[in-house]
């Protein structure tokens, strides 16, 4: 076979919304089409961040795109997300973001004031996250060919000392830590679209998680095995990817997963599972059993980490699956989300 024309396994005839939703379809696209062509046999664990070496010095690199609608929502905006998103991708790959470049794809007709507000939001978020925005690119497409504005950020970072991460170092017995309550961002966006005529006192959780990651790694670095920010597809999707990559089982204790009342209420009403809802300011950590308490203590002492807790552990069986034990002694499989979460009514 021609090595320049590797075979692909992706069979879907066209791209659907689900291929971008972060769940199973996204994974099929990445593993079935991008990876074989772009990475060939070098690909092992696929992620939005990677570490490359220059003259023996490791550099972390990550990219993320933002197409959120509406542009502004309680607790944040697209500009803030674009900075925090890439800073967080780097943080959970074990690196401190140093510099970002940004691409603006703008729809002709976008009001300057709207653009200015987002550029200012980016500058502020970068200041808070301690990262420089060092360059960028602007493209304008015809009116109707984009939805106001899309942003892409790409960042480089310096690896945090003493941190070695990867699904291959995860072992049975390791603990799963969650940094705080889940679902705030996804439900805020769902409600901010105004289509459901539901209101709740909720704000997006968008923030840089780097200070929390740094506080935790300083306290428990050698025991930290894996980190991920559970954005699209939520905690369920992130943990399913881990379970598959490490060929072990993730056992969650459902009652230990922190969920704010407003999110819980909205999920009950809409028939959604908080484990499938997107987050922009939380992260999951796998720590060896000896380091778990130190990691949780460090998170809780740091600003914004008060609700961090152990939500489960890694076990041998059933390999590749995520299980949640309910408060009543029953258990259920927690699957990846297929497509976007949609309210169930009937």
């Amino acid at each position: 076979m021609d090595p320049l024309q590797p075979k692909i396994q992706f069979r879907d005839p066209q791209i659907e919304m689900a291929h971008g939703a972060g769940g199973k379809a996204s994974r099929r696209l990445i593993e079935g089409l991008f990876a074989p062509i772009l990475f060939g046999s070098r690909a092992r664990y696929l992620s939005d961040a990677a570490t490359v070496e220059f003259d023996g010095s490791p550099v972390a690199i990550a990219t993320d795109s933002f197409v959120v609608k509406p542009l502004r929502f309680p607790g944040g905006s697209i500009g803030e997300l674009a900075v925090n998103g890439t800073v967080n991708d780097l943080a959970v790959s074990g690196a401190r973001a140093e510099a970002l470049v940004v691409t603006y794809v703008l729809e002709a007709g976008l009001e300057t004031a709207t653009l200015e507000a987002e550029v200012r939001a980016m500058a502020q978020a970068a200041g808070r996250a301690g990262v420089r925005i060092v360059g960028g690119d602007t493209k304008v497409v015809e009116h109707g060919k984009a939805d106001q504005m899309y942003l892409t950020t790409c960042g480089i970072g310096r690896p945090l000392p003493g941190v070695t991460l990867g699904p291959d170092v995860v072992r049975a017995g390791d603990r799963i830590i969650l940094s705080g309550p889940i679902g705030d961002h996804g439900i805020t966006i769902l409600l901010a679209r105004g289509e459901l005529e539901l209101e709740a006192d909720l704000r997006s959780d968008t923030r840089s998680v780097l200070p929390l990651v740094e506080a935790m790694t300083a306290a428990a670095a050698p025991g930290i095995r894996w980190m991920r920010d559970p954005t699209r597809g939520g905690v369920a999707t992130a943990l399913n990817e881990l379970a598959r990559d490490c060929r072990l089982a993730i056992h969650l204790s459902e009652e230990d997963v922190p969920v704010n009342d407003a999110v819980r209420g909205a999920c009950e009403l809409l028939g959604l599972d908080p484990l499938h809802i997107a987050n922009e300011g939380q992260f999951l950590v796998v720590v060896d059993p000896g380091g778990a308490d130190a990691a949780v203590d460090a998170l809780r002492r740091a600003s914004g980490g008060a609700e961090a807790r152990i939500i489960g552990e890694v076990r041998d069986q059933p390999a590749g699956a995520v299980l949640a034990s309910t408060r009543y002694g029953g258990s259920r499989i927690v699957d990846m989300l297929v497509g976007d979460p949609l309210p169930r009514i009937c």
Partner: protein
Amino acid sequence: MKYVDEFRDPEVIRRTAEEIRRFADPGRQYRIMEVCGGHTHAIYRFGLQDLLPANLELIHGPGCPVCVLPMGRIDDGLAVAGQPDVIFAAFGDMMRVPGTRGSPLEHKSRGMDVRVVYSPADALRLAQRNPDKQVLFFAIGFETTAPSTALTLMEARRLKVPNFTVFCNHVTIIPAIRAILDSPDMRLDAFIGPGHVSTVIGCRPYEWIAENEGKPIVISGFEPLDLLQSTLMLLRQLQRGEAKVENQYRRVVPWDGNRAALRAMAEVFELRPYFEWRGMGFISQSALRIRDAYADWDAEKRFSVPAVRVTDPKAAQCGEVLKGVLKPAQCKLFGRECTPEHPIGALMVSSEGSCAAYYNYEHRKAGVVAGSA
């Protein structure tokens, strides 16, 4: 959260489960059908089967309106919506349900204007806000959602909204239960009756199940404690050799139903002579259509509808699973050709369908299916 937390109290639930285990006669097999898809979903989500004795099997019934909707109806609705300047509005439940050429969501990604609405009234407002568009509300559901469609149609007529129509797929629960009881391979002992449907129709319509068929039925709520209590009430009836209708969900379900809702339904809808149920075939007088007085708002009367018929592949054994003859995983297609992402049979379509619920929550507990993603 009020009305939720007290019905999820782990201690009370453990005690109730214990009582069920004590009460169940180990010498016999119990086969109880929960009719409603919401119950199926709750049973899996809360892992309730794990709390029940091994000789008590919950069979998942036909009460998932998305699952039992024939694919041809989806094709018909999407065909109407495919005309220029039409907005297709439906509940989120419908969005991933595949038609022959894809689901509403897939049509959306190809450019159709598809909107998720939370109630039919939202779809009517959408029409009022978009006077240059035609809004088609694709109505689904049992008696739970039919009254809100009826009230919306009454409002549309009162306000003379010209650009709003309903594509009506409302079905009724009693004929489906009758079809299951009439089936020769039926082997059920008792029913957990639907909760939301019964808030509208009340408990009387189930009396024939107890009186003529000799099967106990308990109308149940949706929280873990509701379902366990209902199961216990059924066991008590079976133990005593009784068959009656009981109402566990009294905090919501009035014995005589909701008269205002029933009046609205009678004003707007009439029974169709017959309607096709996916996985069950044609059932007479099992669905609602819009009365002639509301013809201007009836998509089937106002537009030319292709009336597509799509039969499920022969290999899909949805009917047997629905009747409790087969468990989901015993179907030849389960988890191989037929998955929630690519459903072939009715019950894999919605998360309330028994196959999808089983697939999502249960079947990998023992070990993962290699390479599935």
